[in-house]
């Protein structure tokens, strides 16, 4: 089945079902005309709002000020625009509130407005364009409502933004003040502690332990020294006991004995070479004899003197120097020992004091550490808050100078003088076209779905049998006359339909109807 065959068959079928064809044509045209007449006129007004979250000021103020994420707002523009607040404003602007509608009626109006409003988003490159289209059967109202939508939306977003920044600033400010107060208290406490506890210093714990260590070392050293001194004293005492108080170096007896010994030695020498009769020897013997006598006398004298213990000063008695020396050292040593002992006692006292102080829970050091910590934390937070507050202040200034404002009306709403939607002539033309297409489509579908054969070629294809002949309808003269009449009437009907369409188009164009 090629296209040409189908077309030919369609023409034949149309002729065959001509009455149905014309009837459908007329009906479709009438429906189209009626639709064109009663189609509600609508006027569409549209506006677009540019939402830009990448403006010039942002990179400059990076870190110092925070721009509100307007693009995010663009995304939920639908919620904002259809919010009760804005819709209320729109109702006001659009003149719906003149008749003082009830709450239910207002709700209905809002629903209708929502249905007639089209919101579309065209995001891209950090920018977003919100298109608001609104259609109404009154051109002026369409314009007013669209304008109200754009204005109220921007006002709402800006106000919200302002409020947000202000709230943020106030919050930070409040916090900063609170921390300032806390800081002041911490400072006061710290000062008071310092005043009451002069020796406390920051880092007391470490110093204390250093001091303790130093004291311990000192004590140990002193004890060692003490031991040493005591040992030395013992040794000295022993030495002193063993030594004579005085030493007799040149007693007469002694001198005599020494002379005797000397002479004896000389005698022994001489005897080696001489006889005892030798004068020298004899002389020597005499001398020794004399000396021994002398020595005896001396000894007797000494022994007589002994019980009185009185030394004869005249005697050659002298004080022992070693003894003297030892006595001196001993007394020196005693001095050392005494001083060491007192040093140890002093150091131990200090140590006790230190230990006692560190054991005290209300001791100044722990308190100081705590207060210092509080102070430092408060100070850090306070400084941070101060920085933030300044940033918030800059953001607020930015906003009040409208530099951070990234919403603007790209294309303002304009009253549309012409109704949008299909025009009447479009209905007329559509009716004419559909008036032909609908019957053709029906005929075609009948060809497709009706099991009865309407194409000779379909038979030969289906059954593999040649078509011997295609016999057209044989018209009698009478029938031809009837057909002519019928066709004339049908043509008249079609022409009347055309005429009606044309007339109505003209009438409509001239604005009579």
């Amino acid at each position, binding site marked *: 089945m090629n296209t040409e065959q189908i077309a030919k068959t369609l*023409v*034949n*079928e149309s*002729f*065959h079902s001509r009455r149905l064809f014309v009837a459908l044509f007329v009906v479709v045209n009438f429906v189209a005309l009626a639709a064109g007449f009663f189609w509600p006129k609508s006027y569409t007004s549209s506006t677009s709002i540019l939402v830009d979250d990448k403006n010039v000021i942002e990179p400059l103020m990076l870190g110092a000020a925070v721009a509100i994420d307007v693009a995010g707002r663009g995304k939920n523009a639908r919620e904002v625009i259809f919010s009760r607040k804005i819709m209320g404003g729109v109702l006001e602007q659009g003149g719906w509130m003149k008749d003082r509608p009830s709450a239910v009626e207002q709700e209905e109006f809002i629903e209708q407005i929502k249905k007639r409003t089209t919101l579309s988003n065209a995001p891209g490159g950090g920018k977003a364009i919100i298109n608001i289209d609104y259609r109404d059967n009154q051109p002026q109202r369409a314009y007013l409502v669209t304008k109200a939508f754009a204005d109220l939306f921007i006002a709402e977003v800006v106000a919200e933004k302002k409020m947000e920044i202000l709230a943020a600033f106030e919050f930070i400010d409040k916090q900063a003040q609170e921390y300032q107060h806390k800081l002041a208290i911490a400072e006061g406490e710290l000062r008071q502690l310092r005043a009451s506890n002069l020796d406390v210093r920051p880092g007391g714990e470490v110093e204390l332990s250093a001091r303790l260590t130093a004291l311990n070392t000192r004590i140990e050293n002193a004890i060692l020294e003490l031991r040493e001194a005591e040992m030395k004293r013992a040794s000295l005492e022993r030495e002193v006991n063993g030594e004579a108080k005085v030493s007799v170096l040149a007693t007469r007896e002694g001198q005599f004995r020494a002379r005797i010994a000397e002479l004896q030695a000389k005698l022994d020498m001489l005897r080696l070479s001489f006889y005892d009769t030798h004068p020298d020897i004899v002389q020597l013997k005499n001398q020794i004899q004399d000396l021994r006598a002398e020595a005896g006398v001396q000894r007797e004298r000494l022994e007589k003197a002994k019980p009185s213990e009185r030394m004869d000063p005249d005697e050659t008695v002298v004080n022992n120097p070693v003894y003297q020396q030892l006595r001196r050292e001993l007394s020196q040593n005693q001095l050392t020992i005494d001083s060491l002992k007192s040093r140890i006692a002093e150091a131990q006292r200090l140590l006790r004091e230190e230990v006692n102080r560190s054991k005290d829970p209300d001791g100044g050091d722990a308190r100081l550490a705590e207060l210092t910590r509080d102070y430092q934390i408060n100070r850090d937070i306070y400084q941070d808050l101060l920085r933030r507050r300044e940033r918030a202040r800059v953001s607020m200034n930015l906003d009040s100078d409208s530099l951070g404002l990234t919403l603007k009306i790209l294309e303002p709403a304009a009253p549309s003088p012409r109704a949008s939607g299909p025009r009447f002539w479009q209905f007329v033309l559509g009716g004419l076209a559909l008036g032909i297409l609908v019957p053709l489509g029906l005929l075609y579908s009948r060809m497709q779905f*009706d*099991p*009865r*054969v*309407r194409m*000779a070629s*379909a*038979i*030969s294809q*289906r*059954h593999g*049998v*040649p*078509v*011997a*002949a*295609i*016999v*057209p*309808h*044989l*018209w*009698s*003269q*009478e*029938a*031809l006359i009837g*057909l002519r009449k019928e066709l004339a009437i049908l043509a008249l009907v079609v022409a009347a339909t055309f005429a009606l369409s044309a007339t109505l188009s003209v009438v409509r164009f001239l604005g009579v109807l």
Partner: protein
Amino acid sequence: MSKIEKALKRARDERGNLQVVPAAAAGGRIVPWTALLGQQIELPETISRMGGNEGKLLSADALREQGIIHPQHTEEPVVQVFRELRTKIIQQSQGQNAVILVAAVSKGNGGSFIARNLGAAFAFDSAKTALLVDCNLRNPSVHQLLPNASLPGLADYFENPEIDVSKIIHPVGIARFRAISTGEFREIPAEYFVSMKMRRLMESLRERYSDRFIILDGPPMSDIADARILSELSDYVLVVARHGRTTNTKIESGLSAISHKKLLGIVFNDEPQIPWIR
């Protein structure tokens, strides 16, 4: 100008004066040609070899009212179609006469219309004659062409052994065109078709004149038994399917009844064409 051409011209001139009886034509019914007697009618010019009695010939317009083509309707595409169909059959039979069964797929597909017009087309040719045999016993129609519906037909031939074949062949008002009606059957005698007598009748009809083409106006193919028997008696079969009346299923079941060797093809009848657009 030859004698024949002169005669044709005269006939055409005379036809201009012809008046069709309005009452008969009004209903679109097929009018017995006798109703048109008394009017000026074209006279037979060629010699009939079928006994010479052509009866009164009907005019082209009168035939048209009966739904029968005429060579003078040159502007009718139907005429051209039947001429071509006729030529096709003659080519197929290689000049020999033949028995052609024309059977509709189902009732109302116009089998009789095709059969009688095919006969008329054969009769166009002065060297050929046509005989239409009404084999549609349940719904006969050929008798409408005859001047008198009660003329003897096939039934009389089968029931009366005395009767001669020539007695049941009647002229229909068209030159070189005869017809055999069913006659008046008292019962449904489908068995007649299988009888030897029927076979002999066919042979005698065929062999009597070598230029006579016999067209059997068969029953619808929904009547499978009759269609099959008649297709066996015939040389060629034409199946008639009418536009918008027949489903493929019916065509298929009809085709299954006949031998495809004999099948000449399908005649697609009554295609809607806008008459003035050729």
